[in-house]
């Protein structure tokens, strides 16, 4: 029996309560989602593009759901004491999967820009949601269908045509519960023609001894000539399982940067699906994954060059230690009739221990002549010559490793188009490798040469 059944059964039984604690715009697609899930199954290990991740097993346990939207008290101060202070942003919170707003930020936004709850949307928002909700992420994808069936809240970000939002919009997702919990978050982002915005999303888990299944579907519509930067930073817990899929549609002349960073997690599956539908668009897709212990990070990417004259550049880097498992499957498709496409994909990985495993599958499918494309993948160890060179200068083996692993990630950080965040990330990555990432929560890491990436 597929894990899906328990969720469709749940909806059949309690659907009215789910609907009642959500909004008409989100409820509108539930029948279609339910129909799509009929007879479908979640990917299991070995399925195409799911070689290393068993989604069915991830969804199978009976997590609790907060369908009546009971209030949870999350401590908004806690994760920021050491993590991302001093970054001037318009800040919003989602506690578990309930939009919490921020109270002070709305006034900072340029006129016409909306950041709002998908559940408690006013008239104007409802119209935007109705127009775009479910238009980017396809309902026949079981993850999308499940999220559409169960998501009761989330966030809408809307930037009207021609408006430039200078200050980054920051969304902080906090997970906190006393017992196992499934959260289903929906994000809808609409950047209209000529508009510009930057977004930083941080996932944090505050209850470290509780299992979470944290699912989200992010839909992004990027209009003609618009520019959109999206930084997706996961710094959760080892018992947080995350299934995230981001679906992006890019119009002509648009410029999109997506940077997905996994610093601390349990099991993570990220899908990044980008369709380039207009000419002269540019896409930069970056990813960084740092895993130790028994952590598992699986990124799947798809970039569809559906028209010609566009440029995409993709780079994912992993550093795996202990028994960590990393997986990367990436596909670039150059559709028929897409001349002058330039598309590059690269996946580079370091296994810092002999037990860490990396699985990588770069793919390139080209159906047009007159294109420039390239892809490549490497898995290796840290440079032993560089290690020795540093040691002869008095740098300890531990410190030399840390410097080399940080250096390995430097081009991902250099790709960040936000100076304050760049500095912050450099610091966070340094702390992650030094084993002091979660220092203010619990830090008892002892230092030795052999455990290279420290757990918190």
């Amino acid at each position: 029996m597929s894990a899906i059944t328990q969720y469709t059964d749940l909806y059949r039984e309690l659907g009215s309560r789910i609907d009642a604690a959500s909004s008409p715009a989100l409820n509108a697609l539930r029948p279609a989602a339910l129909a799509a899930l009929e007879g479908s199954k979640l990917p299991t290990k070995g399925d195409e593009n799911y070689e290393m991740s068993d989604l069915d097993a991830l969804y199978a346990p009976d997590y609790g759901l907060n369908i009546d939207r009971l209030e949870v008290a999350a401590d908004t101060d806690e994760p920021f004491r050491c993590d991302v202070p001093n970054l001037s942003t318009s800040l919003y919170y989602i506690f578990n999967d309930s939009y919490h707003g921020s109270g002070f930020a709305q006034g900072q936004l340029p006129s016409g820009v909306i950041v709002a709850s998908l559940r408690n949307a006013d008239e104007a928002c409802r119209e935007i949601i109705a127009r775009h909700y479910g238009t980017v992420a396809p309902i026949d994808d079981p993850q999308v269908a499940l999220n559409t069936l169960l998501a009761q809240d989330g966030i809408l970000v809307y930037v009207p045509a021609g408006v430039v939002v200078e200050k980054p919009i920051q969304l902080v997702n906090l997970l906190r519960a006393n017992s196992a919990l499934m959260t289903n978050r929906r994000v809808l982002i609409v950047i209209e023609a000529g508009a510009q915005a930057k977004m930083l999303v941080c996932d944090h888990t505050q209850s470290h001894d509780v299992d979470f299944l944290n699912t989200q579907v992010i839909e992004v519509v990027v209009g003609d000539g618009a520019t959109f930067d999206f930084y997706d930073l996961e710094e959760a817990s080892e018992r947080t399982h995350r299934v995230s899929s981001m679906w992006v549609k890019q119009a002509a002349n648009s410029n999109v940067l997506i940077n997905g960073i996994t610093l601390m997690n349990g099991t993570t599956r990220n899908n990044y699906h980008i369709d380039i539908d207009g000419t002269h668009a540019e896409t930069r897709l970056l990813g960084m994954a740092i895993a130790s212990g028994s952590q598992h990070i699986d990124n799947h990417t798809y970039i569809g060059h559906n028209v010609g004259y566009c440029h995409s550049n993709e780079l994912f880097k992993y550093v795996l230690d202990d028994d960590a498992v990393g997986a990367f499957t990436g596909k670039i498709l150059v559709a028929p009739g897409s001349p002058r496409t330039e598309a590059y994909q690269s996946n580079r990985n370091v296994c810092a221990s002999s037990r860490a495993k990396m699985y990588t599958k770069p793919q390139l499918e080209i159906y047009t002549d007159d294109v420039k494309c390239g892809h490549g993948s490497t898995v290796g160890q840290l440079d032993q010559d560089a290690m020795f060179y540093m040691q002869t200068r008095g740098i300890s083996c531990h410190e030399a490793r840390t410097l080399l692993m940080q250096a390995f990630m430097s081009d991902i950080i250099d790709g960040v188009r936000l100076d304050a965040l760049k500095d912050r990330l450099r610091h966070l990555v340094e702390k992650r490798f030094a084993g002091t990432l979660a220092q203010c929560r619990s830090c008892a890491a002892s230092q030795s040469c052999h455990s290279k990436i420290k757990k918190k």
Partner: protein
Amino acid sequence: MLEINDLHAQIEGKEILKGINLAVKAGEVHAIMGPNGSGKSTLASVLAGNPAFTVTGGTVTFNGKDLLAMSPEDRSHEGLFLSFQYPVEIPGVSMVNFMRAAINEKRKYYHQEPLSASDFLKLMREKRAVVELDNKLASRSVNEGFSGGEKKRNEIFQMAMLQPKLSILDETDSGLDIDALRTVAGGVNKLKTENNATIVITHYQRLLDYIKPDFVHVLYKGRIVKTGGPELALVLEDKGYDWIKQEFDESKGK
């Protein structure tokens, strides 16, 4: 300062050093010369603690301590410095971070506080001048994209920063034009005191025109087969190594 007794070392089962004996005292400059493949660079690597080589016999005492028992970083802290024949490029690690880590780890070893940012930068500026190292290079990744001459200057700059007791210069002259050679050698001479010592490993006499050795040793087939004063280098320049090879091989044959 340094006492090497009957040192044997191998790589991948092949014996390269077959019983080296050498004593270096403070204030001295020793040149080690020899034909290609005689073991010159291996000796430097073994002294610095390169894990690729295995020591199979002999002892090395450095300022009274057992050098071979120390990790490469502790050898550095104790005052040993190796200028690499081929300095390693480390993309993504800036010279500043690299040097700061090196200096502060040494200070930690001697239970000293880390250097403040301003003191550190002051030290960098001061030592850069020794080899006229461009400030631009100091802000780049370690050796990345440096020319051959810049890499060697960078080695001597690092030597100036770390103030070693014993410096081993492994083919520091290779790949240098005459101006760069003069600058690099000038840097080494500026750092010279009566309390430190230098081992210059070189193939040619020309570096020794700038860095005057007190002793010249000839290494051949993993052994020091001849030792003399500075005049030995001139003889070698003039006559090559063949006569030494012949002498050695004949004596073996007997």
